[in-house]
């Protein structure tokens, strides 16, 4: 996992309940967490572990938050770590002092979890941008000379992702592809991409996208933001008639949520353990064509035993019958309800078999990803 972006947050608060709560919440989001309940301990950890962000309580006995910030800023090893402090509601003076001492933001107590997460994301993004991680992305892509090698993740390589795949290409080089990757301990990303056309040149695009995914799909970016950033790069590097459709599903097994973003791609099929399959309709622009784009996002609650499918239009489209894929959805839904008893390893193959007409020669790449929560 060469490029996985591991983000560590240090929580400092003398109240163990506060620390525990923040720790639980942040771990669920995919961050690494370290904690301290006093100033001295916090400073020691900050130097040792170089966290990417520090959440610091102001009111602590002995060494208070202000003293901690002051000392952190004096130490070259910790001076550039962004600090967000926790303060009581009406402490205006506290806020001003904190800012003057170099904090980047404050969160009032008692805090709203959603607010904490939003601020954490924001300041991590700002901090990373300052360290020019993003500007180096396009440089790295320009250095990519090797065409796509078979770097498609197999279920055996990432068993915790719990998926099965069916992949068949129309041409040697292949245009469609998929990627399955681990974002954090309990978070996995599933991505299916359909490249318009069957150019040989598309294999360069594949390698580029794999790199983009690794850079942009991590805990601090919402999937819809990741998609937007990928689009920003693709608009610059794709030819004027080439575009991609893609579907990205992020599964958080700890929070039991599935977040889906869709870029003009056939919708994800969700097959609950008990119940009928349904389409998850999310709006989104295609990738690589437009500078101003919109990506919707949907979060659905899932339970162990549920399944979901990502696939390319090659699975369902019937050009011989002049049917575009948007007309072929009822059929694939029905096929899904017939594979409820299939074990995980066989899901993708089973669905592909049900949908592919063996009497016709396939005219397109086919990708099917079947995942069990």
């Amino acid at each position: 996992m060469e490029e996985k972006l591991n983000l560590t947050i240090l929580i400092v608060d003398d109240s163990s309940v506060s620390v525990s709560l923040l720790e639980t919440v942040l771990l669920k989001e995919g961050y690494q967490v370290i904690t301290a309940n006093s100033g001295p301990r916090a400073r020691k950890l900050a130097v040792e572990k170089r966290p990417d962000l520090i959440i610091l309580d102001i009111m602590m006995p002995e060494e208070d938050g202000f003293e901690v910030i002051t000392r952190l800023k004096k130490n070259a090893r910790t001076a550039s770590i962004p600090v967000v402090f926790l303060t009581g509601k009406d402490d205006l003076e506290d806020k001003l002092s904190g800012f003057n001492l170099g904090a980047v933001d404050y969160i009032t107590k008692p805090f709203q979890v959603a607010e904490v997460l939003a601020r954490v994301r924001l300041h991590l993004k700002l901090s990373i941008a300052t360290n020019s991680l993003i500007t180096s992305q396009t440089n790295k892509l320009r250095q990519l000379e090797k065409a796509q090698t078979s770097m498609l993740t197999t279920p055996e390589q990432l068993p915790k992702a719990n998926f099965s795949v069916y992949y068949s290409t129309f041409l040697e080089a292949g245009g469609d592809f998929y990627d399955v990757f681990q974002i954090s301990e309990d978070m996995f990303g599933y991505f299916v991409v359909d490249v318009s056309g069957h150019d040989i040149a598309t294999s360069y695009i594949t390698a580029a996208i794999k790199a983009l995914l690794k850079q942009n799909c991590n805990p601090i970016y919402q999937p819809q933001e990741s998609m937007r950033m990928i689009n920003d790069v693709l608009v610059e590097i794709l030819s004027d008639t080439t575009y991609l459709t893609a579907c990205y599903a992020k599964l958080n097994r700890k929070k039991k949520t599935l977040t889906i973003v869709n870029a003009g791609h056939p919708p994800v099929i969700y097959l609950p353990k008990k119940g009928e399959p349904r389409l998850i309709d999310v709006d989104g622009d295609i990738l690589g064509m437009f500078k101003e784009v919109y990506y919707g996002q949907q979060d659905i609650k899932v339970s162990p035993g549920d399944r979901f499918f990502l696939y390319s239009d090659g699975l369902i489209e019937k050009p011989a019958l002049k049917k575009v894929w948007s007309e072929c959805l009822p059929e694939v839904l029905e096929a899904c309800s017939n594979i409820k008893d299939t074990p995980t390893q066989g899901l993708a193959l089973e669905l592909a078999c049900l949908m592919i007409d063996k009497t016709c020669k396939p005219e397109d790449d086919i990708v099917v990803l079947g995942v069990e929560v």
Partner: protein
Amino acid sequence: MNFSELAENIGLEEDEFVELVELFVETSTSHLERLQSAIDKGNTQQAVEAAHYVKGAAGNLGFTGIYDLSKAIEEKARQNIFEGASEALKAIRDRYDQIVEVLRWKKS
């Protein structure tokens, strides 16, 4: 006191929330005792610290009753006023006992 509702408010599963409540109960015991002795002795510094601690923990978990009561004690203590503190502490203890009761029931 609906634990599952409180859990949902902070985006946690109920069992995770229960763990935090247990931690709250554990750590608050000593602070409530310190608060009691602070009120008895008229020690404002101690009262402020203890009340502040309980207030913070309760606030995070959504126990608004205890939060408000501790806040009141803390603010008055900062101004050297202990009037009503004993009553407020008793009300906190009542709620605290309720929480302990719910925990016991959940674990059985």
